[in-house]
């Protein structure tokens, strides 16, 4: 008998083609950073590191510093996280293990729909509903009672750092909840059973066993939420008040990196002004990239460790 015909493996062109296509995503990411870097070059060359610490923003004198925008971005996002995190983790605990499956399904769907609502809809809602409410029922009473504390001093205003943080808190809630729920679900059942078998109550098990086990993943979810908050543009622009200053109080108007770009980019003329705006964008994207990569790695490593 003759030898079996040797299998000749044709080069798999389809594989090569799809591989090239799939690399479009990383390519886009790298290209975005490179193009923004190129566009920001005049401002980068002119101001160097001083751009990050300068607080002047004056197109007339071509003097640009990013500090107030960086401050506003960090402050709104930080405040939003502080408001959203306890609620998000509570919902995640509930969705992961408590209650009737149907009820959980409805709540889960509701929270996920929050993520689908366009940010401009949050913006118009924040401008006409949330901002007046905040002024009357949150800011005014707080200023009346605690106004002597620096960062709670008045006068209260509708558009403020606080209003922007409140709308951001709502907008990052789905991210926080969905990812925390997944990492809590990934905690091995045995841990819970052992804890209950030792006589721990539901709360003791959740607080001392489940949440510590899921800690790194919840931290990752928090950072992902932070990334969302840092980059959110439209809703924030509509209610933050758009003043290029480091505010003295959370009831003062402020500005964020994204809102400065949204408001000023189409009107920027000359070389340095648009370049400075793109450099704000560059700062924003580099920070969110770093934040996202760290968060994704944290969430993934937690889930992998739990599965092992």
């Amino acid at each position: 008998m003759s030898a079996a015909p040797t299998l000749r493996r044709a080069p798999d062109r389809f594989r090569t083609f799809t591989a090239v296509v799939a690399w479009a995503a990383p390519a886009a990411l790298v290209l975005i950073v490179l193009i923004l870097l190129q566009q920001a070059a005049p401002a980068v060359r002119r101001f160097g590191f001083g751009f990050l610490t300068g607080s002047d923003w004056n197109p007339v004198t071509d003097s640009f510093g990013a500090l107030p925008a960086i401050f506003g971005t960090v402050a709104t996002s930080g405040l939003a996280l502080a408001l959203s995190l306890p609620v998000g983790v509570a919902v995640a605990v509930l969705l992961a293990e408590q209650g009737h499956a149907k009820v959980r399904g409805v709540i889960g769907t509701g929270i996920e729909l929050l993520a689908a609502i366009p940010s401009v809809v949050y913006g118009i809602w924040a401008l006409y509903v949330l901002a007046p409410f905040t002024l009357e029922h949150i800011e005014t009473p707080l200023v009346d009672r605690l106004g002597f504390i620096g960062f709670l001093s008045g006068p209260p205003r509708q558009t403020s750092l606080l209003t922007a943080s409140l709308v951001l808190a709502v907008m990052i809630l789905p991210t926080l909840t969905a990812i925390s729920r997944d990492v809590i679900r990934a905690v091995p059942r045995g841990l819970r059973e052992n804890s209950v078998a030792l006589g721990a109550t539901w709360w003791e098990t959740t607080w001392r066993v489940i949440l510590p086990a899921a800690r790194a993943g919840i931290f990752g979810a928090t950072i992902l939420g932070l990334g969302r908050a840092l980059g959110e543009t439209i809703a924030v622009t509509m209610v933050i008040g758009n003043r290029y200053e480091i505010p003295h109080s959370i009831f003062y108007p402020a500005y964020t990196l994204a809102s400065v770009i949204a408001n000023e980019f189409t009107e920027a003329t000359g070389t340095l002004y648009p370049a400075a705006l793109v450099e704000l964008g560059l700062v924003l994207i580099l920070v969110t990239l770093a934040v996202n990569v760290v968060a994704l790695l944290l969430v993934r490593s937690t889930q992998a460790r739990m599965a092992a």
Partner: protein
Amino acid sequence: MSRNVRRRFTSTASLSIIYALTGLALVPLGLVLWFTVTKGLPAVVHPEFFYNSYRPVGVPGAGVAHAIAGTAIMVGLASLMAIPVGVLGGVYLAEYDRAGWASWVRLASDVLVGTPSIAVGLFAYALVVAPLHHFSGIAGSVALAILMLPIVIRTTEGAVSLIPGGLRESGLALGLPRWRVSLQLILPAASPGVITGALLAVARASGETAPLLFTGFGNLIFRLDPTQPLAALPLFVYHNALTPYKSLQEQAWGAALVLVVMVLGINLVSRWVLRRQIRLAGQL
């Protein structure tokens, strides 16, 4: 009160707090929907709202046809760019490269999902608007396509991964080349999941405002030419909401209602399609 009674009480109390916080989390959803519907309805009940375009303040009969057309064109063009690339990329990740280098593609896609859309707008400006010296619908659709791409890639990958290996093996055993197995057996079987991804990407793109501010730019007349500046529903809401005119604000709420109905509708449909996919994959 004994220690155990106290422990049980703490447990019950904390559970109630968790239920309360969950209720609190759903409050914004209810409020946003409530106000969008009640404030948007007065504009939407006039049929001309859907077939007329911009009218100056005070002239009755204004509508958002120009914004609907602009959104449809830009999202349509973006879909033509992002969906084929995303689907093939997703097939690659699921069929050929589950570990290895593909993890970089996966990480990049996930990072791209979280990239600030305003930065993507700046990118599209530099890439399309600046060289042509001209705001255009095409520039807007490039920005939207980049935002859609990672969603399509990751959902396609997920849907294709659900298809059991038996289908693949039977195709290959019958002598089909791999590309035909992928395109003619696996993709059709995974189509509900793939469609879900495409729908979600379309929904996301339809609601984006920030990247259109300096690409599509907006426009007041009914126009179908993507080489010109185009209006979009989110841009319309953004600009009108910030004007002091009551009638324009009312139109903004109306347009917001149209957006919400569309986006939430797409989301609910895609959810339903996806559930079918999971059931279907279980039967294969």
